[in-house]
């Protein structure tokens, strides 16, 4: 029936000579710069990767003792803690928020884990578990303040930063738990400081932990509905809501996960520092933001790959180590980090302006 009809009214046969191409824009010729811009727009992680490779090469030539498996692995040990914090920070920044409390949460949780095991004699695994729960709890507080009380994330976490810092001093009684005490009573807390060697490289389990966290987050953010929701909220919260995403619930879960990761960082930091010190990592919250920004995640949310911040943390580590080994005064490390931030964001802005 339909066949007959189509033969009777065969209007379309005359179309066979016409232009069959789908409507398209004429490809415009781009210069090398334009091509680069497009390439980077498509794969934003490449910017920090290129910067990392270039800086390793440059310091390898300029700084004595820099380019060895041992030194490069040492840099990884040095950035592992800030790297893990940067993972937590990235989650929040992807939702167009910011978390100023990450370092305070980490130090407070490390004090909680240490005190519970050493002073209160609670079995170490239980103390660690309680620490992780408290970490998620801090995230719950941040998340509820952001979603239910509708405070901007900056204000919320500026407030909780101070609160957690105060609690840190309260819980720790401003005292350090010494390395020797931990060795005797709670060696499990120092697990992530344990070393192993591959060739000339010396790595700690803390470094492995950092890489695992980033890989897991990459999978979750790219391959699960929850992950896509996180990006969607960061890109345009209202649109995400209209599309049926329960934005408040997702946001709270993001802050809780970030708090949980900070608690994991706390455990790892005890291995790194050796002792439980309430005064360590004073600037780590800003360092984590620095790593995220240099790693190419947009502070406006919804854009950037989760792998970027790990590379960003490594870039800062490479600059610090390289400048030190080249015998440069400490103040130039600050100077270099400052320019790295500005250049990273400038490149990010430039890539965003990509045309057609």
């Amino acid at each position, binding site marked *: 029936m339909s066949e007959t009809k189509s033969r009777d009214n065969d209007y379309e046969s005359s179309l066979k000579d016409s232009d069959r191409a789908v409507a398209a824009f004429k490809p415009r010729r781009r210069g090398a710069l334009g091509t680069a811009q497009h390439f980077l727009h498509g794969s934003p992680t490449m910017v920090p990767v290129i910067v990392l490779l270039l800086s390793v090469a440059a310091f390898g030539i300029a700084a004595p*003792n820099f380019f060895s498996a041992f*030194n490069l692995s*040492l840099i990884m*040990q*040095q950035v592992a*803690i800030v790297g893990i914090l940067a993972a937590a920070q990235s989650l929040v920044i992807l939702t167009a928020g910011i978390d100023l409390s990450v370092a305070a949460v980490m130090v407070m949780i490390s004090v909680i884990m240490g005190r519970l095991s050493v002073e209160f004699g609670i079995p170490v695994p239980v103390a660690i578990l309680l620490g992780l729960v408290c970490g998620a709890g801090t995230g719950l507080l941040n998340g509820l303040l952001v979603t239910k009380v509708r405070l901007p994330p900056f204000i919320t976490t500026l407030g909780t930063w101070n609160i957690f810092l105060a609690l840190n*001093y309260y819980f720790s009684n*401003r*005292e*350090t738990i*010494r*390395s*020797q005490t931990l060795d005797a009573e709670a060696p499990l807390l120092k697990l992530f*400081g344990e*070393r192993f060697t591959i060739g000339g490289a*010396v790595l700690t389990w803390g470094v492995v932990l950092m890489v695992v966290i980033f890989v897991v987050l990459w999978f979750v953010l790219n391959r699960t509905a929850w992950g896509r929701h996180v990006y969607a909220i960061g890109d345009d919260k209202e649109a995400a809501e209209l599309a049926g995403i329960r934005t408040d619930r997702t946001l709270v879960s993001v802050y809780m996960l970030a708090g949980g990761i900070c608690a994991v960082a706390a455990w790892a*930091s005890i291995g*790194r*520092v*050796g*002792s439980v*010190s309430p*005064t*360590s*990592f*004073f*600037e780590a919250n800003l360092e984590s933001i620095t790593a995220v920004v240099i790693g190419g995640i947009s502070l406006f949310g919804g854009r950037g790959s989760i792998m970027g911040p790990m590379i960003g943390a490594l870039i800062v580590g490479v600059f*610090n*180590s390289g400048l*030190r*080994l080249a*015998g440069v*005064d*400490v*103040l130039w490390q*600050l100077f270099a980090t400052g320019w790295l931030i500005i250049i990273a964001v400038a490149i990010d802005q430039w890539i965003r302006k990509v045309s057609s």
Partner: protein
Amino acid sequence: MKIRTLIAGTILSSACAFAAPALAQSGDVSACLITKTDINPFFVKMKEGATEKAKELGVKLSTYAGKVDGDHETQVQAVESCIAAGAKGILITASDTKAITGVVKEARDRGILVIALDTPLEPIDAADATFATDNFKAGELIGEWAKATLGDKAADAKIALLDLSPAAPSVDVLRDQGFLKGFGVDIKDEKTIGDEDDPRIVGHDVTSGNEEGGRTAMENLLQKDPNVNVVYTINEPAAAGAYEALKSFGMEDGVLIVSVDGGCPGVKNVQEGVIGATSQQYPLLMASKGIEAIAQFAKDGTVPKPTDGLDFVNTGVNLVTDKPVDGVPSISVKEGLDRCWG
């Protein structure tokens, strides 16, 4: 209207100005203690010392503290409150040693005795007196001890210096340069860190005075030269961090670590051989002596005189070690533990 406001204002302000001293005269002597923060055990101990002495002498003590190290604004407000409350004397560890001098002058003009504790003001005579640790001497002691302990090997030592911060505040410079002088290094300008050209110096790095910074700085300097065998540290937390780094390089046995402070965890680390020797300072003594001075000043107007040869009152520093050497006075770890703080 304008005139009336002016008159009202004048009456009000003069009433305040007169009321405050009047209040003080009617009651006991009152004093203020203003610290940089109330977080650091050093200042906690200071407050303890002041509170105890004030109770003993019947001095009414009010305490104030900045929110963080460097919180100048809160300290200015605290001095103003003390002036308004008619205090006889103010003890202050200034966060901003130059900027605070303005309001300090105001206090002194009203006849208040101002004593700088631990941290001298700039210039030092901006305060009536300064009660402090001789930080240069503290550095010298550990330098001399390290040199004597190494003996002949001191001539080709490899020295790593773990300082405080890129800003290099005076305590940082004094301890660092004191140590090098004690060790027998030509320190050139004693106001500048890092202008020495002695080949025994591997390098300087900064630690923020905590364990994490100490570890990273030590790692960096070991990368520069793995033969480091003498480590100077700004304080004991930094020393503990340096020890962790040395341990991770498998070098904890062959390296001598020296430090300054005398906090209880630090002295325990001397006991266990993590730190070779540390110079102990006495915050409690600074504060209690300060209160005594204020009580004395209230009685007969005596202003405390600086220690001979120095421009401040030296509250003492002792080398704490269980491996004493000839020619460098020291106290035992046991005594150090009895007198430690924090």
